[in-house]
C-alpha cells in the first residue's frame, strides 16, 4: 500500500528534538478553526434539512388529506367533503373547486390550518409552482393535476398546476410536491381522487 518513494521518506534525526515548536500551536489553532467551520457548515445544512423535513411533513399532511377524501368513494366532492365541514348550506353542497377548497382547508379550524411554511411564516403553504429564483416559494406545497395520454398512445402523464377554478372531481389524478431550499420540487405522493 505504501508508495516506495514515500517509504524512503523520513526525517528522523538521530538525536531527540523538542516535542512542541511554536508553529505547532499555530497549526492546532488553524485545525481547530477549520473543524469549527465544518461544524458550522454542517449545522447550517442540518437546519436547512430540518426545514425540509417540516416541508415534507406539510406535503405529507396534504397528501394524507387527499387520500382521505379519495377514500370516501361514495360521497360527491363537495366543499363540505373537501374541507370536512358539516353543514346544510347550498354553498357547502355544491361542486368543490380547488380555490374555495384550499381556502376552507387553511381557514381557522380547517384540516390544514395548523400548517405553516417553515422557511418563513409570510411564505404561502399551498401555492404556485416552485421557482428557483424566487426565495418566497421555498417550503411551498403544490398540487398538480395529471392528464393521462389518450388510449393507444404510450403511457404518459402530463402534469400542470391545479388552478383555483379547477373543479375537484372523482378519478382526478393529483400529485403533491414540495419546494426545497434550492427551489427544486420534491415529489411527495400521487393520489387518485
Amino acid at each position, binding site marked *: 500500500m505504501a*508508495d516506495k518513494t*514515500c517509504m524512503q521518506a523520513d526525517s528522523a534525526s538521530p538525536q531527540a528534538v523538542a516535542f512542541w515548536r511554536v508553529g505547532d500551536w499555530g497549526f492546532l489553532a488553524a485545525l481547530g478553526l477549520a473543524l469549527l467551520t465544518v461544524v458550522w*457548515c454542517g449545522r447550517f445544512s442540518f437546519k436547512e434539512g430540518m426545514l425540509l423535513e417540516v416541508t415534507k411533513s406539510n406535503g405529507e399532511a396534504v397528501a394524507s388529506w387527499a387520500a382521505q377524501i379519495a377514500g370516501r368513494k361514495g360521497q360527491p366532492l363537495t366543499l363540505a367533503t373537501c374541507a370536512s365541514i358539516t353543514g346544510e348550506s347550498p354553498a357547502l353542497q355544491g361542486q368543490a373547486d380547488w380555490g374555495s377548497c384550499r381556502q376552507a382547508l387553511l381557514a381557522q379550524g380547517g384540516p390544514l390550518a395548523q400548517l405553516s411554511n417553515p422557511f418563513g411564516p409570510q411564505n404561502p403553504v399551498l401555492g404556485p409552482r416552485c421557482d428557483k429564483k424566487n426565495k418566497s416559494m421555498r417550503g411551498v406545497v403544490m398540487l398538480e393535476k395529471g392528464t393521462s395520454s389518450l388510449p393507444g398512445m404510450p403511457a404518459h402523464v402530463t402534469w400542470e398546476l391545479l388552478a383555483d377554478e379547477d373543479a375537484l372531481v372523482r378519478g382526478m389524478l393529483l400529485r403533491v410536491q414540495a419546494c426545497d431550499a434550492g427551489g427544486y420540487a420534491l415529489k411527495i405522493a400521487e393520489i387518485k381522487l
Partner: protein
Amino acid sequence: MTSAGPTNPAEKAPGMGPGVGLRQRLYRLLLDAHTPGNWHQAVDRFLAILIIANLFALLFEHVEVIHSAYASWFHWFEVASVFIFTVEYLLRLYLAPEDPEFARARFKRWAYARSPFAIVDLLAILPFFLAMFVQLDLRVLRALRLLRLFKLLRVLVPAVHEFRALNRGRSFRQHVHALVWPSEHGGRLHHYFDTFLVVWVVISVVAVVLESVESIHYVLNLEFIVLDTVAAAIFTLEFMLRLFSVVEQPGYRGAVAGRFRYVRSPGALIDLIAILPFFLEVLLHHLIDLRFLRVFRLMRLLKLTRYTGATKNLGIVLKREWPVLLAATFIMMLLVVLTASLGYLFEHDAQPDKFENIPQSIYWAVVTLASVGYGDISPVTPAGRAMTIVLSLLGIGIFAIPAALLSSAFSDQLHIEREKLQNELFIMLADGVISADERETIEAEAKRLHLGRDEVDRLIEKARRQREAASNHSLMAMPQLIAQPAAAVERYRELLSQIRQLAVLGDNARMTELMASGDRATGFERQAWEWINQRIHEDVPPKRAD
C-alpha cells in the same frame, strides 16, 4: 522466501508441533501476537470488520423505514454477532492462563475477567442476554450496543503503544508525519489511519450515489447531511494534517515553499476538491445555488489513487507516450473533420435537419468513426452510405491506435517496474539471504505491482541465478573484470593453468611446430609459449584462495 509460504499456520508456526497442549496450541494459533504466521491478525481483522458492521447495523436500525423492512435481517445479524462475540469472550477466558500478561496471577482467568478489555468484551454481549430476562428499553439496548465500538481498542491500543515507541524523542510534527505519510515510524497505526480513510472514502461515495435515488434521499435526507458533515470533517482533518507535516517529506522542505509545492501537487488538489464543495455550498448559498457541486464529492474516489501504483504508472505512460498520442489524435481529428465535411456534402440536401452544418455533422462523424453507431443520425444517399463504409473501416484502425499505444506502453511500464524489482532483489541478494525487512519491502512492492507469490519466487530465483553468474569470474565480461582486479587475477590464473594443461596433456610437439610455422601466432605469442613450455615442471601453482 523462495520456498512456498506456510499453507497451514497451525503446522508451520513455532510451538505448534506435537507435545504442545491443546490450550497452548489454540492460544498460539489464534491470540498470540508474537507467533509469526499464525491466525492472530486474521482473527483481529475479522472482529474489527464485525464491530464496524455492527455499528452500521445500529445506525440503520434507527431509520424506521429500513428497520421495519428488514427487521428479521437485523435480528439475525445481531444474534450472529452476539454468538461470535460470546465465543470470542469464552475462548479468551479459556486461553487466559496461556497469556503472559496473566501468567503471574494466582487466579489467571479471574485476573483476565477483571481486565479492561475483558470487561468491554462482556459489556458488548451482556445487554443481549439481559434482555432475555429483563424488560429493557429498546433505546437503552441500542445505546449499550454502542459499547462494542470499544472492542476496537484491543487492536488500537497496541498500535498506539507501538507508534509511541517508534516515535520516541521525535517532535509533534514528526509524529503527525509518521501517522499520515508512509514511513518506517508509522507502524500499524499508520496502516489503520489509511484503512480508516479508505473506508470513509467508500462510505461517502456510496452515500453520494444513493442520494441521487429520490426514494432513498427522501427518507434519509438528514442522515445524508450528518454523514457528509462527518466525512468533510475527517477529510478536512486529513488535509490539514498532511499540509502541516508535508515539510518532513523529502522534496517538500521549507515551511512556506514546501507547503506551497505540496498544495499544487495532484494529491493535494484531489484532497481539496473532496472537501471544497461542502464549504462552498453553504458559504455561498445566498449568492448562487451550488447544488451541482455535490457531484464533485464523487471525486473523493480519486483519493484512493494515493494507495495504488496503477494511476502513477498511467501518468508515467501518458507522459512518455504523449508525442505519439498527440500524433494519433491529430490524425483522428483530421479524419473527423473530413468525415463530417463529406457527410455534410452528401447528406445536407437529403436531410437538412440532421446534417444542417459541418459542426453538427461532427457528432455523426465521431459516433460513426468510433464504431458507436447510435443510429439517431444515419446517411440515406448512396454516396453518403458508400463514404460511410470506407470511413467506418478507416475509423476502426485509426481510433484503435491510441488504445493500442496505451495498452502496449502500460504493459512496457509494468515490465520496467518488474525489472526494477528484480534489480532490487539482485542487490538484496548480495549477502546471499533476504532479511525480514527486505522481505517486507518485497511484499509491499509485489502488492503494488500485483504480483503473485509464485511470480515473486520466480523473480527471486532469477535474481539469485544472476547473482551466482555475476560472482563467477569465468563468466564475467571484460568490463566487469577490469572493474574487479581480484576477479581479474583469478581469471588470469585460470587461463594460465589451462595453457599449462594444454602443454602437458596436448600434443606439445605438434603445437610448437604449428606455432613456429607461418603466421599462426605472433612473435610475442610464440615467445610466451616457449617460455611456458620450458617452465612446465618448474612451478607448481599454489592452491586457490577460494
